[in-house]
């Protein structure tokens, strides 16, 4: 199993969620985060004093999926989240050694 982590633009969350759902991936966890990257920030002023807005609001999605689904899921996320504009975000995949469903104690693929 793998953990797919995606950083996407906030208004893309629904699109990604629907795309994954169509591929049968229902469970996921989202977090409000802020990101820095190539997108850079912009300079604003507050009461006449300049400051950098370099942390842009993003949403992080975490999805644990079974190995065979990983590639499809990543592709779907990338397709759904892309707007072609800078700051669209990243997806990365990390290995997962064990998963448990708390309610039932089921393990592994059954737990997803």
């Amino acid at each position, binding site marked *: 199993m793998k953990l797919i982590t995606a950083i996407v633009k*906030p*208004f*893309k969350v*629904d*699109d990604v969620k*629907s795309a994954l759902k169509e591929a049968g991936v229902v469970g996921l966890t*989202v977090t*409000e985060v802020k990101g820095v990257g190539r997108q850079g920030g912009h300079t604003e002023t507050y009461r006449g004093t300049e400051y950098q807005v370099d942390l842009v*609001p993003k*949403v992080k999605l975490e999805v644990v999926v079974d190995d065979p689904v990983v590639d499809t899921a990543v592709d779907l996320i990338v397709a759904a989240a892309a707007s072609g504009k800078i700051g669209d975000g990243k997806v990365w995949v990390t290995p997962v050694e064990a998963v448990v469903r708390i309610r039932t104690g089921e393990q592994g693929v059954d737990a997803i």
Partner: protein
Amino acid sequence: MRRRLITGAVVAGGLLLILGSPAGAQEYEPTTQDILDNLWVFIAGILVLFMQAGFALVEAGLTRGKNVANIMMKNLMDCMAGVLAFFLIGFTIAYGPDGNDIFGLGGWFLADQPYEGGLTLHTNFFFQVAFAATAATIVSGAMAERTKFKSYFLYSFVITALIYPMVVRWTWGGGWLGADEDGTGKVLSVPFSDFAGSTIVHSVGGWAALMGALILGPRLGKYTKDGKPRAILGHSIPLVLLGTLILFIGWFGFNPGSELAADLLVQDIAVVTLLSAAAGGLTGMATIWIRSGKPDVGMTCNGVLAGLVSITAGCGALYNWAGILVGAIGGVLVVFSVEFFEKVVKVDDPVGAISVHGVCGAWGTLAIGLFAAKDDAFLGREDAGLFYGGGFDQLVTQAVMVLAVFVFVTVTTGALFLAIKYTIGLRVTPEEELEGLDVLEHGSPGYAGDTLSGLGMDELTASMSTKELDRLVGEKAEA
């Protein structure tokens, strides 16, 4: 001295008005002083209504964010329901020309009456209904975060229609606790004094809050297995503070408006109210500071309110120094009382309503028996207080009043809450309590984040007709 007596006269006048006057009587032409009297009491009534916002904010701030819309909605709707309940039923029970010393009847629905000076029926109603709404709304805080909306709504209708008006009948309405024609008490040796309602308004609310909180039980998690209270932090101190300041402002309608006339005593009442609030705030802060090592903000706010409630009865009878003393004692009292109810009685009152309104209301009422010096038109004499040589008579009357109202309110509201509990239910399910009342009782959260209600871009642009997209593009070109 003229005006001092007017307070009593107006109440009687109110009844007279409702009783009507002989047909064919000359129409009374109001003087500018009449108009001023009415205008001031009306403005004071607006200030008292503004207190609804204060209560809503204090209660919202001292509870959790997941229930914020629910508690504020309760405050709004007990006011709206209360207005109609008092119009339809309560005002007659309190001030109806027929009926007896316990329960008023007649003069329903503000039936038009010839005007004979003093306050008009509508002025009187406006001011009184604002008070009724205050008594009702006090309860919501103590029952916060776990009471069903519809059950609370029902309760608030009954208290404004029946329970509060009966207490008013007994007192301001000229009932059994009041004075006979000869100035002595109807039943007791001397008549009661409660100028603006420490007992009549605040204790009524406070004791109803006590019964409500008792019958509901504590919020989930408020007490550990071994009965130790746990702190459940209020979610927004700014709301508490703003609410306290609004209540503070509103009180300058509540107390000085209870003069029921525009005269030069109005400002005397205001000053003693101000001093008592300040004293209560300071001693409340000092007490919690000493007891817990830090000046808790919410408790200090309770202290200010304690000072205000404590002086509400005596604001027409007490000198400034006595006002400061009474407020200061109120500020100390409220801290110990909150601790007592939380740790000993183990009633869960998230905002301290029982202590602020019930306990300090009782204290303020009793204080008249000790410190009354001026004649507030209820007392009918100067130097009625024990410390001014007035003997124990007044103190006894005040104590009887406090007790009578305590018993009456706890019994009737107790019965009411139990009746609700065993019919439509009083408390939300544990699931609802955990998830929060806002979404489950009202359909949406009190605070909704922007981000996670984010919508897909496809959807966003799909919502645009071609015409609209053209427009957007047109503008973009400009931008």
